[in-house]
C-alpha cells in the first residue's frame, strides 16, 4: 500500500535569468510562459497520482521568497468558478500559482540592480513547512491538520541562476537539516551554469540532480525523474549525478584546492600557509608555517612520484630536493 507523499516545489523566478533563457540565441530557448505551462502539468500529475498527496509551491524572487500555493491557506483573491470541463483541484493550483506569480512580477517594478534570488529563504521556508506537517503538535486555533502521516517529503528546486557564494553556509545548514528530517532534495537545472552547491545538496540527501540539455522537453524530464516518490525510486531508477566535486574553494583566491590549509579556529581554507588568518585574525606559530611550507607539494603531480612520498612521511623542516625553486619559502615573513 503506498503512502502519501509530499512535494515542495521551489521555483527560481529571477527575471534577468528568465529573460536570458528566452533569447532565441540559445540552442533551445525557454520562456517563462512555456515553462509555467509545463510545470503546471507536472504539478497536476503529482496531485493526480494519489489523493492524499500534498503539494506546496514556493517562489524565489530577487530579494524575497513567497509561498505561491498551499493546500490549507487561500492565497489568491479570486476563487475559480466551477466548470464542468475542469477538475477543481487542478484548476485551483493552476490559477493560484499563475495569479500569484503575475502579482509578484508586477510588484517587482523597475530595479536598477537586481538583488540576488532568495533561494536560501525559500528552501528554509520549505523545511519549516515540512517540519510543521511531519510533527503535528497540539494546534492553535484555526488550522486543520493533515490526517495522513507524511513519510517521505521531497523538495524539488527548479533553478536558473548561478551559485551565490554568500549562500554557501545557509545552503549547507539547510542540507544538514534536510538530512535530519529525511527530506530528499531534487534539483532540475533549467538554465544557467552548473551549481555546485545544489549538486552537493542532491547528492547528500539521495536526490537527483539533472542538468537539462533539451529545455523544450522539460515536462518529460520532470515526470520521468521527479514524479516518483522515494519508495518507488528503489525500483524505478532516477538519473543521478555521480561526479560531485567535493573539493573546497580557498578563501583568498576562490580557486579550487586539493590540499588546503585550514585555520583551526574559524575553519577558513587557504591555498598556501599564511602567518595570519584573514577571517579571524589569529596568528599562527612560526614552527607550523615552516613545517607546512616544507611539506607543501610545490610541483605538479606528474613529477611528484619521485620526491613526494619520502619527504611527507616525517614532515620535518628539512629542505626537500625539488626541481622547481621553493617559492613558498619567500612568503614566510
Amino acid at each position, binding site marked *: 500500500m503506498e503512502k502519501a507523499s509530499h512535494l515542495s516545489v521551489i521555483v527560481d523566478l529571477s527575471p534577468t535569468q528568465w529573460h536570458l533563457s528566452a533569447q532565441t540565441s540559445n540552442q533551445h530557448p525557454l520562456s517563462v510562459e512555456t515553462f509555467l505551462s509545463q510545470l503546471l502539468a507536472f504539478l497536476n500529475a503529482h496531485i493526480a497520482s494519489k489523493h492524499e498527496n500534498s503539494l506546496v509551491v514556493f517562489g524565489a524572487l530577487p530579494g524575497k521568497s513567497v509561498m505561491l500555493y498551499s493546500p*490549507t*491557506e487561500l492565497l489568491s483573491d479570486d476563487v475559480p468558478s466551477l466548470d464542468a470541463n475542469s477538475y477543481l483541484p487542478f484548476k485551483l493550483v493552476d490559477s493560484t500559482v499563475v495569479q500569484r506569480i503575475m502579482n509578484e512580477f508586477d510588484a517587482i517594478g523597475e530595479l536598477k540592480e537586481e538583488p540576488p534570488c*532568495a533561494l*536560501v*529563504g525559500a528552501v*528554509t*521556508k520549505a*523545511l*519549516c*513547512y515540512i*517540519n*510543521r506537517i511531519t*510533527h503535528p503538535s*497540539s494546534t*492553535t*486555533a484555526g*488550522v486543520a491538520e493533515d490526517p495522513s502521516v507524511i513519510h517521505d517529503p521531497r523538495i524539488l528546486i527548479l533553478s536558473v541562476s548561478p551559485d551565490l557564494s554568500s549562500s554557501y*553556509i*545557509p545552503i*549547507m*545548514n539547510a*542540507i*544538514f*537539516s534536510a538530512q*535530519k528530517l529525511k527530506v530528499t532534495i531534487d534539483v532540475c537545472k533549467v538554465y544557467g551554469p552548473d551549481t555546485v552547491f545544489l549538486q*552537493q545538496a542532491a547528492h547528500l540527501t539521495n536526490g537527483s540532480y539533472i542538468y537539462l540539455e533539451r529545455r523544450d522537453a522539460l515536462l518529460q524530464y520532470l515526470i520521468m525523474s521527479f514524479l516518483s516518490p522515494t519508495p518507488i525510486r528503489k525500483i524505478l531508477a532516477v538519473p543521478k549525478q*555521480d*561526479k*560531485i*566535486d*567535493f*573539493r*573546497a574553494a580557498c578563501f583568498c583566491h576562490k580557486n579550487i*584546492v*586539493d*590540499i*588546503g*590549509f*585550514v*585555520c*583551526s*579556529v574559524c*575553519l577558513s*581554507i*587557504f591555498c598556501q*600557509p599564511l602567518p595570519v*588568518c584573514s577571517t*579571524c585574525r*589569529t*596568528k*599562527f*606559530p612560526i614552527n*607550523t608555517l615552516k613545517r*607546512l611550507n616544507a*611539506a*607543501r607539494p610545490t610541483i605538479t603531480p606528474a613529477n611528484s612520484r619521485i620526491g*613526494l*612520498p619520502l619527504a*611527507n*612521511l616525517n614532515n620535518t623542516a628539512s629542505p626537500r630536493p625539488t626541481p622547481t625553486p621553493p617559492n613558498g619559502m619567500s612568503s614566510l615573513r
Partner: protein
Amino acid sequence: MAPKNRDDNFMDVDSDSDISLLGDIDHRGKGKAKGKATDKRKKEKGKAKAKEQAYTWEASYTRSWDTVQEDEAGSLQGAVEDLMARGRRRRLLAPAAAIRRTIIRHLVLLLDLSAAMMDRDMRPTRFDLMLQYAREFVVEWFDQNPLGQIGVVGMRAGIGERIGEMSGNPQDVLKCLSDRTRLEPTGEPSLQNAIEMARSSMSHLPTHSSREILIIFGSLTTCDPGNIHDTLDACVKNKIRISVVALAAEMKITRDLCDKTGGQFGVAMNEGHFKDILFELVPPPAQRAVARAGGPGTNPAADLMMMGFPTRLPDSSPPSLCACHSDMKSEGFLCPRCMAKVCDVPTDCDICGLMIVSSPHLARSYHHLFPVKPYEAVTELREGGSEPVAACHACARIFSTSASTAAASEGISPWGRYRCPDCRNDFCTECDVFVHDVIHCCPGCGK
C-alpha cells in the same frame, strides 16, 4: 513519601484553615505513618508561610506534580506549552554572539563499570541506561563534530580498562559499546587509574585540538593508588578539560576535577535530566582565555592544519583495493597527495597521513561560529499602528488572534509570535525552535 489518598478526612493542602487540619489527626489516628504524613503536610504549609520547618531539605523540595495544571477542558496543552517555553528561556541564556570554539575535538569517555552501577534507581539499571545514552551521545556527537575522535575507557575492579581506541569513525565506537556482556560491572571504580589512562592516550595530540574527558560516575567512592590531586595537576598542565555527570551524588573530588580544569559538572536527578546534561556536552566548548606566555597575540590553541579534499570515485569506476581494509571496491575517495583509495571520509590517509575531509564536514561546524540571533517574544500586538501579519512567515501557520491566558512569563509571547531582530518577521513557536535548533538559518534574513 506522603500518601495521596483522597478520602474526605484529608484536607486539601491549599486551604488556609489550620483548625480542620489539627482535627484530622484525631479522625484518622491510624498509626505513626499517617500522623507523620500529616505533620509533614502541616509543615509544608508552614513552609509556604515561612514558619519553622522540621527538615532542612523541605526548603528546596519542589512538588513537581503541582506544576502540571489541567485547564477547564481537561487537557494538558497549557502544561506542554509551558515546558516548551522553559526550554526557550534556557536557550535565551546561551550566548547569542559568535564565540570562539574549538572545532577539532578529542574526547575520552570514561564509563563507571563498578558494582554501584547495577543499582535500580534508574530504570532498568543505571548501567543499561548509561550504555543506551552513551550510544545516543556518540551518534549525536559525531553528527555535530565530524572532525572529532572518541575513545572509551572503563573503570572496573580498581583499574582502568581500555574499551575502545581513539577513533573518528562512529561505527567503531558504537561497536565497542554494543557488547553488553563484555562490559559487565564489577568491583570498585578507580578515578585516578582511569584518568591516567585517558591522559596518556591524549598526550601526543596537537595543542590546537581540545582534549576532553567525560566521566559518567555512579559510585560514591574511588580507590586510588596514589594522590589524585597529582593527577589533577597533571591534567591541568596538559590542558585537559574534565566534565563529570554524576548519577549518585556530588563528591568533592569530582567537583574539583571539573572546576580546576574548566569542565561542567552535573548530578542527574532523573533519567530525562541525565540525558539533558549529557547532551549539553555535545556542542564544542568555548575556548578559554589562556594566559599568553609566549609573545603577544599568539594564541597557542590556534594552528594551521593541512587538510586534503578528496575526489570521489563513483560506483561506475573500475574496482580496486582500498588502502584501509584491502577490500576490493569500486567506490571510494582518492587522497589528493598520494592517490591512495580510502573508503570513507573524514579519516587520516593510511599511506601518507594527510587528514582527508570533504567540505560538508567542515561546513557542519560553521553554525557554531555564525549562530542565529534569538528571536524576541512579541508582547505588544500592535506596534506603531501597523497591522500584524496573520500567518507565520516561515510555515504560514495562522496565528491565534486571542492572547493566551497562561501567565506571560519572561521570554514567552502571549500571542505565540516571535520576531527576528534583523528582518522583523514574525514566526510561530515551532518554527522558532526549529530555526534555532536544527536549521541555524533565519528564513527571513536568508543568512
